């Protein structure tokens, strides 16, 4: 049945999509909440099962393609390669976590909230499994639109402007990418569909890889794509939407945005940018890297002086993403491997971090570091979790992030020592701002704001415990994850070798 009627990617996409749409029609919030939770758990189950079928002989389980738009040679072609598998897994993990963590928080029109969330999940799943450029673009936008609505309806007081900026920013970026896609498409070889019809060009990933693009073409197309991805990640000059959005969006959404959505950009670079424009990539590596490194240091510095807890996390996330982007462009086995594993780890860590931040904000009603203090006395468990997560965030050994950053730095060093020196300054800066946060929020004496705060509830404990376990498991024994992504890494590196 599996493989003949259904494939993993289809399940991963359709399940959230369908349940998401149904959620809109379930009037009651409670019901929708449970449905969404169950659906996301099933999705998680599926993606976990899919881990067992990575082998080549299960190709029918993992890849499927239907003819869709014949005229333009587009197919509904989805599949799970190693990279996609890892990220779909991340997506699948993220959503149930978020649903459970925000289980207590009530919002009006909850039904549509969960509906949109699931739609977003479907979009993300699609992005990570699309093997067809047009399809990729569809899902790319499908992930964006629900995010826009979620942020603007359930966000903070300045939500509309912030989210709108975010939307227009990303929309413009993706439109440019669309033009780029079209241009590449017109340079692809023709293809005959399963049903015999012939299309003079094709959107399939494979034919994109084999597209005949001259070096000058690649050089400007590169930027059309890169801007779209850079906005999503975000890389240094394109990042200004992020702190405001993270600050204003409802935390559940922020978790998705920072935990999963930013990976869209990195993923895009890995699957769509570098293999399609290898020449341009080599040509612009230094430019991109310098941008990334500026971003790393710049964002870290900003994080040091932030008073708003959420913005602090946002900036730290920018710094981390910058490092990943730089590592991708270092483009040797080690660095890319590091990025793969780090994409997953960063997702886990930042989601955990947001959960803690959300708890703090919910319990105290403030998100300004300067107003908090002494929480550790009132909520020791919470503070322990925060300390662990924060330390994972600054890549302390035996936490997951260490493995990723270690590999990325090593690879980066292979590429260029000086860049590594510059980027590695962030190791110090990250310690500075993280410790500052811990100190200001948890240590010191309690004040009226934090007097009344209570320790966390069971479900929160549960979630955080799970996440912390993941953090340590990956940190102590990362090899399985490395094996999971090895193949993808090798293929990518192979592309650049040739």
């Amino acid at each position, binding site marked *: 049945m599996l493989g003949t009627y259904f494939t993993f990617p289809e399940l991963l996409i359709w399940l959230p999509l369908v349940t998401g749409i149904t959620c809109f029609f379930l009037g009651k919030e409670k019901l929708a909440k449970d449905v969404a939770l169950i659906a996301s758990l099933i999705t998680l189950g599926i993606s976990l099962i899919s881990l067992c079928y990575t082998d080549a002989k299960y190709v029918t389980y993992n890849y499927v393609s239907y003819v869709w738009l014949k005229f333009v040679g587009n197919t509904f072609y989805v599949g799970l390669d190693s990279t996609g598998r890892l990220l779909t897994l991340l997506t699948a993990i993220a959503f149930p976590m978020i649903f459970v963590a925000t289980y207590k928080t009530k919002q009006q029109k909850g039904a549509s909230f969960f509906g949109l969330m699931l739609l977003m999940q479907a979009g993300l799943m699609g992005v990570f499994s699309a093997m067809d450029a047009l399809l990729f673009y569809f899902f790319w936008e499908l992930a964006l639109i629900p995010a826009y609505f979620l942020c603007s309806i359930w966000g903070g007081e300045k939500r509309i402007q912030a989210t709108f*900026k975010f939307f*227009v*920013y990303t929309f413009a970026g993706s439109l440019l990418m669309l033009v780029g896609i079209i241009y590449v498409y017109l340079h692809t070889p023709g293809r005959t569909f399963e049903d015999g019809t012939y299309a003079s060009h094709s959107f399939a990933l494979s034919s994109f890889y084999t597209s005949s693009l001259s070096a000058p073409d690649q050089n400007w197309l590169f930027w059309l794509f890169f801007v779209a991805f850079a906005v999503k990640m975000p890389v240094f*000059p394109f*990042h*200004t*939407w992020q702190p405001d959005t993270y600050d204003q969006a409802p935390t559940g959404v922020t978790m998705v945005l920072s935990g999963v959505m930013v990976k869209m950009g990195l993923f895009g670079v890995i699957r769509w940018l570098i293999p399609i424009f290898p020449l341009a990539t080599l040509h612009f590596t230094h430019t991109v890297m310098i941008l990334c490194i500026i971003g790393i240091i*710049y964002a870290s*510095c*900003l994080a*040091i*002086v*932030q008073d708003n807890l959420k913005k602090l996390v946002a900036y730290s996330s920018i710094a981390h993403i910058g490092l990943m982007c730089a590592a991708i462009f270092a483009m*040797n*086995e*080690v660095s890319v*491997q590091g990025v793969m594993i780090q994409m997953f780890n960063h997702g886990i860590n930042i989601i955990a971090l947001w959960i803690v931040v959300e708890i703090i904000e919910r319990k105290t009603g403030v998100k300004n570091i300067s107003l908090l203090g*002494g929480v*550790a*006395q009132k909520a*020791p468990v919470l503070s322990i979790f925060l300390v662990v997560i924060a*330390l994972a965030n600054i890549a*302390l*050994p*035996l936490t997951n992030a*260490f*493995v990723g950053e*270690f*590999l990325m*730095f*090593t690879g980066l*060093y*292979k590429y260029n*020592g000086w860049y*590594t*020196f510059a980027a*590695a*300054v962030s*190791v*110090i800066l990250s*310690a*500075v701002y993280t*410790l*500052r946060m811990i*100190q200001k929020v*948890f*240590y*010191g*004496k309690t004040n009226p704001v934090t007097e009344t705060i209570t320790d966390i509830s069971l479900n929160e404990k549960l979630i955080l415990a799970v996440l912390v376990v993941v953090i340590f498991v990956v940190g102590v*024994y*990362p*090899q399985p994850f*490395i094996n999971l992504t090895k193949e993808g890494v*090798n293929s990518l590196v192979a592309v650049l070798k040739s």
Partner: protein
Amino acid sequence: MENVLQKIAGWIPLLPLIGFFINGLGRNLLSKKAAGFIGSITVLFSFGLSLYVFFIVNGGNTYLAHYFDFINLASFKIGFDFKIDQLSSLFLLIITGVGFLIHVYSTSYMAEEPPKDFAKYFSYLNLFIFSMLLLVLGGNYVIMFIGWEGVGLCSYLLIGFWFKDTNNTNAANKAFIMNRIGDLGFLLAIFWLLAKIGTVSYDEVFSAVNLARLSVTDIGGITLLMFVGATGKSAQIPLYTWLPDAMAGPTPVSALIHAATMVTAGIYMIARSNILYTMAPATQVVVAITGLATAVLAATIALKQNDIKKVLAYSTVSQLGYMFLGLGVGAYTGAVFHVMTHAFFKALLFLGAGSVIHALHGEQDLRNMGGLKKYMSVTHVTFLIGCIAISGIPPFSGFFSKDEILAAAFAKNPVYWGIGVITAAMTAFYMFRLYAMTFLGKFRGTHDQEHHLHESPPAITFPLIALAVLALIGGWVGIPEVFLHSGHKLEQFLSPVFAQTNTYVEIHHLKNELSHNTEYILMGTSVVLGIIGIWYAWTRFSKYERTDLKSTTGVNNLLENKWYVDEVYDSAIVNPLKSISLFFNNVVEKKIIDGFVNGVGRAVNYSSRQLRWLQSGQVGAYVLLMVIGMLLLFIIQLFL
């Protein structure tokens, strides 16, 4: 034998980890007694195992235990390995041994804490032991680095143990960040190694093949970066300022982490990679000079401190400087030797100080002490032993190790020796100043303090005695040739570790032997100077009276304010960083980048508002515009 060793080596760090988990998770359930017991017993067990390992190793067989692949890529492979050899086994003994004593000591010292925090404290302590063991056992630089950062974390947690007080947390942050700076150096060294030879495991790195593949600059760079790491961990210039502040933590912690074990990690690392350093003479010079400078600087500062723990802290820094001097001049054995002895007497001193503080209910200012001799005899005696040991008076342990280093320094460069000896004299002086102000004279504290003065309970005195014994006899494992032929057991024991270096030295004739006479003379001078220092301090401070008139000569201020180093750092690094970050935040981010982004929007709005005026609403105008448009089109088409 092998797999037994593998199992045992695995259990050594595992036991404290288990202790950590039990104490950490069950801290709400466990009674103080239970927590303390678990904490201590686990360490005791691993001490037993370490002894076992030590004897096996002493039997001459070393072993590399591979547990699992930590990271395994096509281009390189990092195993989770433990290296069991002379060096690591020696450190194992020091760590677990001293560690155990300090655990025992803590059970009584921390007794006032509520059970929750008590258990927390012990869990931290166990975690520290675990990481430290990881550090020394690690079979490659990455595992070492894991332990390396682990101990940093633990010291952070323990310094900030009483986190209600912001000063403590500040000190903790400072410690962690300064360590982090050092760690960065270490990390970069690792990257360098991986990039060049694609391996970090000791055996492979030190194999002749790989050493051949490293150019001079490579080795120089790598060793320097590692040394940066060492300066962070082992509190050398320029990264030493965190250690004195670290005294904010509980005293046993200071004894264990900031005197006996963690701060010697740097020495361990360099001793571990001795061959690299031997092959990088430039770095060696840097190391030696840094060490020496640190020794002098810290000693001078220690002269004027009035906080009992601060004095000890600075003396630690200065002793560490000695060790680095030893490393710098190639006396690796001497350095390790000094690590050992120093672990004994410095731990002793700290614990003694702790006992005093405990007796005085947290009083740390020397000026409010004095005359404790008659109240707490055990502490007094042990403390005295410690002081003599550190001042390098034979036959106490300090003498042998220090002397070995000094001799090697002389062999390398007499100037090193000269400064070293003067420092030694200073050490003797301030240690006995400390001793005198504490135990001699008459009590200067408040009356109810005097009322409660008492000898500490056995849980505290027992470790004191044990350590005192060690401080007394600990040096006898390294009796120099001149006294007793092949009396230097330690050297023989460690020789396999430094074999490569020695052969290298042989080949390149770097070693110039000292004649026995010179050695005698050197020893003599250092001892004499030491005694002079002691005598001067005794005469000056044994009758110390509280005087409120402060001597305000420039030198005095300079020393009392620790050469204003902290202030310099603040104004040179911390504040600039803050201000530039603020600049980024307020100007670059808000004005320039975001300003540009919003500027685009505003531009569209503006042009929209302007374009509207074209729509004047008058037919005539519309037609006119149309005609002009026609005109344009025609011109484009017909004439362009």
